[in-house]
């Protein structure tokens, strides 16, 4: 993975001291809470219902064993012994004290981590494919591009006070696991007829209150131009994006208001001033960066392992885990292992300090000391030898990290909701528990198959409900928590927003409503159809009729 050089170290160290100064000026009464707010946000520090929340950056979701141990230590020393992995592949701590935060950031800087631009109206963490480098459908490893964009966008002086937050994602594979069409800028790798590497550029996608699928602004952007083109988009957005209404300030609103063609013209005109200037990248820049993400020192193995095959026959729990939580690897004799952070009864995405330490050790022993965070709030051990799968499973199982539910209804994406978040209208975690309890029969879960269930506690959509195969949105109705359901959303290549099912549902009926939707699916599915496929075939009506049958 990327290792800091002297420049990175200097910038992060200076930044820690800068924030220490801001906090001490605040505590001394020289910097008001109002003026501190945007500064602390740009260091990942929010004020939530009960306490501050610190969001630490995990660039494109890649974290080393050493870093994972440091995160565990932060949770032990400064928090309540757990962390929450987020849909932006970051981690959040829910209980730090303001006065401790400079020390936390200093501790993190020792392992080359920071919280820069994890919040605030600026360029946020660059997100990517959690299977980067090991996916069987990969065209180009996206990580070097992510790191290049990360460095360029870090403390960019001109784009630090944008109209609203700005998220960039990069995918290098055929299947889009990075949801590039739901980002302010999405880069999708394209290799053209002359073998030149570049990107199809999407702009103006996003979820939130106004979900929008990104539009193509450029069919082919040569890779050497990614920084200058991003800069042109950002400058047009910085100058023209709305600042009078925060709900209309994202770039998607600007793109829709101008129309993609006029927006493109404006960007191209801006770009023409400096496209061949100092932001142009050279081949050596990509090669140098790619060298930080080498192919690991894989053993020369054949695919398949007799002992694992035997255990799959003998132990149904191991088989369930193998079938659901592991994925084919590009290297013969290896598999990708997903670590489920969706254990029954635990808030989705949460991990304790002990679990983080254990994961660090397992990764060190079996997976080249690296872990990835997924935007579905799970973790990945990318390079596990098939012959080690049984040991890895046992080690994960001992830490309650082997729940065999990846991709199932129980593998929910869920925001912190009303339990922590000051924006939320409704709780998410308790509804997640309700659904978990309803679907506790794993055979039934496997029979239902892949269902991306995504839940947000308010219309800001941190839980990405618009793109869930089933989406759940918490709303406030006269002080009561109600839930709106959607069906048929998709964050991948055939990007789609979910279709509204009907009027909001009472909290205690959400689990039953999900059950109704899945019953309809089981009744009318054909062949290997997933819920999403069935929905695409039959539309919303059969689901609607069943869920609201009692009302009519």
């Amino acid at each position, binding site marked *: 993975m990327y290792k800091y*050089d002297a*420049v990175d170290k*200097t*910038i992060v160290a*200076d*930044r820690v*001291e*800068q924030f220490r*100064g*801001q906090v001490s*000026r605040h505590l001394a009464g*020289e*910097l008001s809470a109002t*003026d501190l707010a*945007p*500064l602390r946000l740009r260091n990942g520090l929010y004020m939530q219902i009960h306490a501050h929340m610190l969001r630490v950056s995990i660039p494109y979701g890649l974290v080393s064993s050493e870093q994972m141990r440091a995160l565990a230590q932060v949770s032990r020393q400064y928090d309540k012994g757990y962390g929450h992995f987020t849909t932006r592949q970051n981690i959040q701590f829910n209980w730090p004290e303001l006065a401790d935060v400079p020390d936390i950031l200093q501790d993190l800087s020792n392992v080359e981590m920071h919280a820069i631009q994890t919040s605030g*109206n600026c360029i946020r963490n660059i997100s990517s494919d959690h299977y980067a480098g090991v996916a069987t459908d990969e065209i180009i490893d996206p990580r070097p591009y992510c790191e*290049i964009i990360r*460095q*360029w966008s*870090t*403390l*960019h*002086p*001109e*784009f*630090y*006070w*944008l109209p609203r937050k700005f998220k960039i994602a990069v995918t290098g594979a055929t299947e889009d696991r990075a949801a590039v069409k739901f980002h302010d800028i999405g880069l999708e790798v394209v290799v053209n007829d002359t073998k030149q590497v570049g990107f199809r550029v999407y702009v103006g996608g996003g979820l939130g209150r106004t979900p929008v699928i990104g539009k193509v602004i450029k069919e082919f952007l040569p890779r050497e131009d990614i*920084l200058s083109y991003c800069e042109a988009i950002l*400058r047009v957005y*910085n*100058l023209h994006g709305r*600042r*009078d209404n925060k709900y209309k300030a994202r770039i998607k609103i600007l793109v829709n208001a101008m129309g993609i063609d006029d927006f493109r013209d404006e960007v191209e005109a801006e770009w023409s*001033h*400096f496209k061949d200037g*100092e*932001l142009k*990248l*050279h081949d*050596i*820049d990509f090669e*140098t960066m790619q060298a930080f993400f080498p192919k690991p020192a894989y053993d020369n193995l054949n695919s398949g392992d007799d002992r694992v095959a035997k255990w799959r026959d003998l132990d149904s729990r191991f088989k369930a885990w193998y079938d659901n939580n592991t994925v084919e690897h590009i290297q013969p004799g290896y598999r990708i292992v997903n670590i489920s952070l969706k254990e029954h009864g635990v808030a989705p995405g949460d991990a304790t300090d002990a679990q983080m330490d254990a994961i660090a050790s397992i990764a060190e022993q079996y997976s080249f000391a690296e872990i990835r965070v997924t935007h579905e709030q799970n973790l990945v051990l990318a390079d596990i030898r098939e012959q080690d799968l049984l040991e890895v499973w046992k080690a994960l199982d001992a830490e309650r990290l082997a729940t065999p539910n990846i991709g199932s209804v129980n593998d929910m994406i869920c925001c912190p909701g009303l339990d922590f978040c000051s924006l939320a209208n409704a709780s998410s975690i308790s509804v997640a528990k309700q659904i978990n309890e309803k679907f506790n029969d794993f055979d039934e879960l496997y029979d239902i198959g892949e269902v991306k269930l995504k839940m947000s506690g308010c219309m800001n959509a941190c839980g990405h409900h618009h793109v869930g195969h089933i989406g759940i949105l918490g709303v406030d109705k006269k002080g009561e928590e109600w839930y709106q359901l959607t069906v048929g959303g998709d964050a991948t290549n055939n990007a789609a927003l979910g279709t509204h099912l009907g009027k909001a549902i009472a909290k205690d009926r959400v689990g039953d409503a999900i059950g109704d939707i899945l019953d309809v699916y089981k009744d009318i599915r054909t062949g290997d159809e997933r819920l999403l496929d069935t929905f695409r075939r039959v539309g919303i009506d059969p689901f609607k009729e069943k869920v609201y049958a009692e009302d009519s």
Partner: protein
Amino acid sequence: MSTTKTVANRAIKARAKGTPDRIQKDIINANAIVDKKIVKNSIHHVAETEELSVADLPQGDISVPMNLWLDHKAELKKRGGIVAVQIAADEFPEDFSEEYAEISSIVLPMVSHVDGRSYSHAYKLRTRFNYDKEIRAIGDVKYDQLGFLTRSGCNAFELPEGENIETALKAFTEMSDVYQPSTDGGALIFSRRRAIH
């Protein structure tokens, strides 16, 4: 008197005067920071109002809204002392490209420090129009904005009443390295690494 009301490309983006994007009251500060040093300030920044006329302008060094400059340039040039010109956040530097040779210094009034448009204005003025005279940020400009405003092209600042201007000087030395080019001579990190390889 002939006015220069119709600048070629100005009509496209002409906006009402006195919008919330402009400073609403005159700004007069005792001190300023110029080229990282504290100096006595003499400039009276005149707010843009519907009624603003050349006859009402105060004596001495002033900065005036761009609209006033465009409409009364000849008269303003006859005044003694400094006549700086303001470019508001919702105006566009490219609309005034013919003016810069005659404007002795530019003022960027910031109504809110969380509004980043003036950073792009400063950047464009320095890089695209090669404006090499003073660019001064005023209004809601405090310690924690000075570093990036400097990188983007501002070399003069006035802080609001009550801000500790001596303390704010530390802002210029907080960050000792950068990843990206701007107007301050910083180079793209990858070109620096390229030079090592």
